[in-house]
C-alpha cells in the first residue's frame, strides 16, 4: 500500500514582480511528499529553494500552480486562513531558533497553541512533556537567553511538535550550531521521524542531507534531481511524544 501524500505540488510557479524586471523563482515544480518521510531539500543560492520553502510553509502563495496540504488546496487561501493552516498543520524550526525572549521555555513551546485559543493552563502538561522529550525538563522556567544554542534549538523542536503538525519544516536547523550539537539536534529530528513525523529539511550540508531518506535538489527554479537515499544509516530509536 502506497503511503498517503500529505503534500502535493503541481506546476508550482512563483514570480516576483520587481517593477522593471520579473524574477521567476519557480518555474513549475511538481513534488509529492508522503506522510512519515524525511526529505532534504538542497540547492545553491538562487535555486528557488527558499521560495519553495516559503510556499511549503504557507508563508507565501504561488503565482500559479496548486499546492495541496493534507488534502486541501491551500494555494489560494487568504492571509488569515493561511495563518490558521500554519498554526494547525505546520511546525517550524529555524536556523536561528527564533524563540521569544520574554517567554519561558514552557511558554515558548505553548505559542502555537496560544493562537489556536488554547490557554497554557489547559495544555500545561502537554507542553511540559514536550520539554521533557527534548531533554529540558529541568529548565521549564528558563528564558531563551539563559540557554545554550543547542538547548534553544531543542525548545524550538518541542515548539514545532506542540500542535501535532502534518509536517515539520526545518530551515538549516544546525546552521548556527557547532558540529557536535548539530549532530545531536539532527539525531532528535531523525528519531522524531522514526516515530512517524514527516520532516522536510532545507540544508546546504551534504552530510546533513545524508541523514534524510530522500534528497530533492533544486536548480534554476526547478527540481533538478529527486532521489532516494539508499545509504541511509540504521533506523534510530523512535522519539515518541506522549499524547
Amino acid at each position: 500500500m502506497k503511503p498517503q501524500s500529505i503534500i502535493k505540488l503541481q506546476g508550482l510557479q512563483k514570480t516576483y514582480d520587481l517593477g522593471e524586471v520579473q524574477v521567476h523563482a519557480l518555474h513549475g515544480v511538481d513534488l509529492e511528499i508522503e506522510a512519515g518521510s524525511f526529505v532534504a531539500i538542497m540547492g545553491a543560492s538562487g535555486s528557488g529553494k527558499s521560495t519553495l520553502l516559503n510556499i511549503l510553509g504557507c508563508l507565501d502563495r504561488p503565482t500559479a500552480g496548486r499546492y495541496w496540504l493534507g488534502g486541501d488546496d491551500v494555494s489560494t487561501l487568504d492571509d488569515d486562513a493561511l495563518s490558521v493552516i500554519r498554526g494547525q498543520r505546520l511546525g517550524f524550526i529555524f536556523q536561528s531558533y527564533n524563540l521569544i525572549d520574554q517567554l519561558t521555555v514552557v511558554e515558548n513551546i505553548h505559542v502555537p497553541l496560544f493562537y489556536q485559543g488554547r490557554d497554557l493552563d489547559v495544555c500545561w502538561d502537554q507542553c511540559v512533556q514536550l520539554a521533557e522529550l527534548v531533554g529540558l525538563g529541568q529548565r521549564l522556567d528558563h528564558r531563551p537567553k539563559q540557554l545554550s544554542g543547542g538547548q534553544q534549538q531543542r525548545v524550538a523542536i518541542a515548539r514545532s511538535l506542540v500542535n501535532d503538525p502534518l509536517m515539520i519544516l526545518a530551515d538549516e536547523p544546525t546552521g548556527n550550531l557547532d558540529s557536535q550539537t548539530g549532530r545531536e539536534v539532527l539525531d532528535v529530528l531523525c528519531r522524531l521521524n522514526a516515530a512517524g513525523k514527516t520532516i522536510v529539511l532545507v540544508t546546504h550540508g551534504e552530510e546533513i542531507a545524508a541523514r534524510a531518506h530522500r534528497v530533492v535538489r533544486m536548480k534554476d527554479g526547478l527540481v533538478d534531481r529527486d532521489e532516494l537515499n539508499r545509504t541511509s544509516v540504521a533506523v534510530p530509536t523512535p522519539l515518541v511524544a506522549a499524547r
Partner: protein
Amino acid sequence: MKPIIPIALVRIVQLGVKSLLLHKMRSALTMLGIIFGVCSVIAMLAIGEGASHEAQEAIKKLGSSNVIIRSVKRTAESNSAGQNRRSFVAEYGLTYRDAARLQTTIPGVRRVLPLRIMRDDVRFSTISHPCQIIGTHPSYPEINGVDLLVGRFITETDERYQNNICAITLSLAESLFTGQNPLEQEVKIGANYFRVVGIVRERGTEQKRPQAGATEGQTIDANVYIPLSAARGRFGEVIFRRGAGSFEAEKVELHQLTLQFENPESVETAVPLIQRVLERFHERKDYELVVPLELLRQAERTKRIFNVVLGSIAAISLLVGGIGIMNIMLATVTERTREIGVRRALGAKKQDITTQFLVETVVLSVGGGLIGVAVGVITPVLVEQIAGMKTIITWWSVVLAFGISALVGVVFGLYPARRAADLDPIEALRHT
C-alpha cells in the same frame, strides 16, 4: 475571528506586561510622559477649582439677591468741586432720600438696608480700642450675615427712640472686657455712652467696606453696631478727621445701601433702574454699584475660561506623552520584527499581532494613567499644605484625565500596531 474570551485577554495583557518588563527603564520613561500629563490635568483643575470656589464663596456671602451701593469719594475732582461750593467740607455719597426713593420706585425690592460708618475709639474704663461704628437698621443681621451670639441686636424700638444701645463684635468684646460680662456695660464713643445689649460675630471677617477716612479694604473685625437714628442724632452728618498736619471734614449721609430683592431674577431687571434713579439725583458719580450676582456670573465665566486654558495645557502634555509612546512603540516594533515574524509563522493572524501591540501600548498608557491619578490626587494636597492654596479635586477631572490617557494609548498605539501586523512574515523572519 474567534471572539476574545476574557481569559485570552488576560493572557495578552500578561504578555504585554512581560514584554514591557523586558525593558524596564524604557517603559518607565515612556510612562513618565503620561504620568505627568494625567497628574497635571488633575492638579491644575483642582487648583483652578479651589481658587474659583473661594472667589465664589466670597461673592455668595454678599448675597446673590442683593445689590450693594456704596458711597465713593471722588478724590481730586470732588475735593475742588466741594471747596468751590462750601468751604472745606467734602460732601458726597448716598442720602436718606436715595434710600427712600429706591425703596419706593424699584420693583421687587424687599428691604433697603442703610449703613453709616464712622471710625472712632471705643472706650471702656481705661481701655480704648479703635473701631468702626456702624449705624444701621434691625434687619442688618439677616441681610449681611451676622450671627448673634449673646443678647439681642438693635430693635425697631431702639431705632425709633434713638436709644443709646449697641451690639459689638466678639473680638472687640474680648479686647475691651477681659474677664467681664460685656452685657449691660456702657462703652463711651466720642462724647456719648452706649449700653452693650448683644455680641455678634461676622461671618467671615474678611468683609471689606468703605470706611470714613481709613484705608479702604482694611479687614474689620472690631465693629460697634448702633441704631441708625442714634448715629445721626449723636454724631451728626459731618465727620471730622484730624491727621498729622491735616484736617478733613466730609459730609456723608449714608455710606452704603444694601437692597435686598425678592429673588435673584428681579436683580437683573432692577440694576438699570437703580442706575437711572441714582444718575438723576447725583451730578457726579459718587457711588458705586456692586451686584454680587453679576460678580458670581463673571467668576463662573472666568472659571470656565480658566478650565479651558488649564485643560488645554494639560491635554497638550498628554498629547506629547502619547507621541512619546508612539515613538517608543514604533522603535519596539522594529526591534521585535523577528518576533512578529515568528508569531506569524506559528499561526498568529494580523489581528493577533495588532491586538498584542495595541494592548502593550494601552498597558503603558493606562499604567501611566493610574500612577498619574495617584500622583495627581496627592499633588493638590501638597499644594494645599505648602502653598496654602485651596484645592478641590473633582471626580470628573480624575475620570477625564484617566480616560484621555487610555484613549491616548489606543490612538497612538494603533499605528505602530498596524505597522507590526502589516509586516510580511517572510521579511520579518529574515530581519536581523
